[in-house]
């Protein structure tokens, strides 16, 4: 995957904190953040995943002129049936070498990791796919390493 430039912005951090229901002022109030032990506005721990906003080709964002698999006039915008029930997120791991702040401009690169399969009672054959993403700051220092595991299920997950 091509490298993505991820500018870390104060309003994006504020919106992200609101979405996870976190009212901690360290995420939006510069004065309060200065007095906190972080000493500045920082991003919530799982914020790095919203690099998706800066990936021009991100497949889970509708794009003008491109058929979208969600509903419109019909229940799906695709004419051919999707080959599976779609991917789910199985695992996510972050290692923080430094916490990121507004003004950081990160360069983000993902590499494919391990691939494995497992049989499951609830969803049939599970295909797992790992990807390792490195976030580097404007000085070239590694600030976050993220490992993500996606799973494609043979059929929708049965509800117990």
């Amino acid at each position, binding site marked *: 995957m091509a490298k993505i430039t991820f500018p870390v912005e104060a309003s994006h951090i504020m919106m992200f904190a609101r*979405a996870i*229901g976190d009212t901690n002022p360290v995420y939006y109030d510069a004065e309060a953040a200065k007095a906190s032990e972080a000493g500045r506005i920082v991003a919530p721990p799982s914020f790095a995943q919203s690099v998706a906003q800066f990936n021009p080709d991100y497949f889970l964002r509708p794009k003008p002129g491109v058929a979208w698999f969600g*509903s419109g006039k019909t229940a799906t915008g695709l004419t051919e049936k999707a080959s599976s029930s779609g991917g789910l997120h199985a*695992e996510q791991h*972050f290692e923080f070498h430094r916490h990121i702040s507004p003004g950081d401009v990160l360069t983000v690169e993902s590499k494919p990791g391990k691939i494995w399969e497992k049989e499951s009672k609830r969803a049939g054959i599970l295909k797992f796919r790992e990807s390792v993403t490195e976030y580097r700051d404007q000085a070239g220092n590694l600030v976050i390493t993220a490992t993500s595991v996606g799973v494609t299920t043979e059929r929708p997950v049965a509800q117990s």
Partner: protein
Amino acid sequence: MALNASQLKVGDTHSEQICDNLTRTQIVQYAGASGDYNPLHTDEVYTTQVAGYPSVFAHGMLTMGMTGKALTNYVGDGTLTKFGVRFTNQVWPGDTLTATMTVAGMRNEGGQNFVDLTISTVNQDGKEVMTGNASARVNP
């Protein structure tokens, strides 16, 4: 405030309700903030009629984010060194979730103290929806 190693012991827990009656609107809010617009999370028509699920469900990353709130409330701001999770069951609109962190160990590396935690997030029926672990810097 960061925790103090001298006041921690293995088995200590911190528990917090991280959402009460999760709304579809909050899931939409998370889609907008994170950029993940997968219709499985926001499009009831697609999710029930095409994907075959009983309703839309939350992004795993929303559960991780809400659990992260309880985690940083416990360990303080900017102190985390690791946070990793496995999503074990789906989270549905209407769910009420509680996250619990348990001290699994303490260590000192290069003069810096760290706490290692295990994490479990459960729904209103006590079913585990996410499990994980984290490490954070702590004061001596």
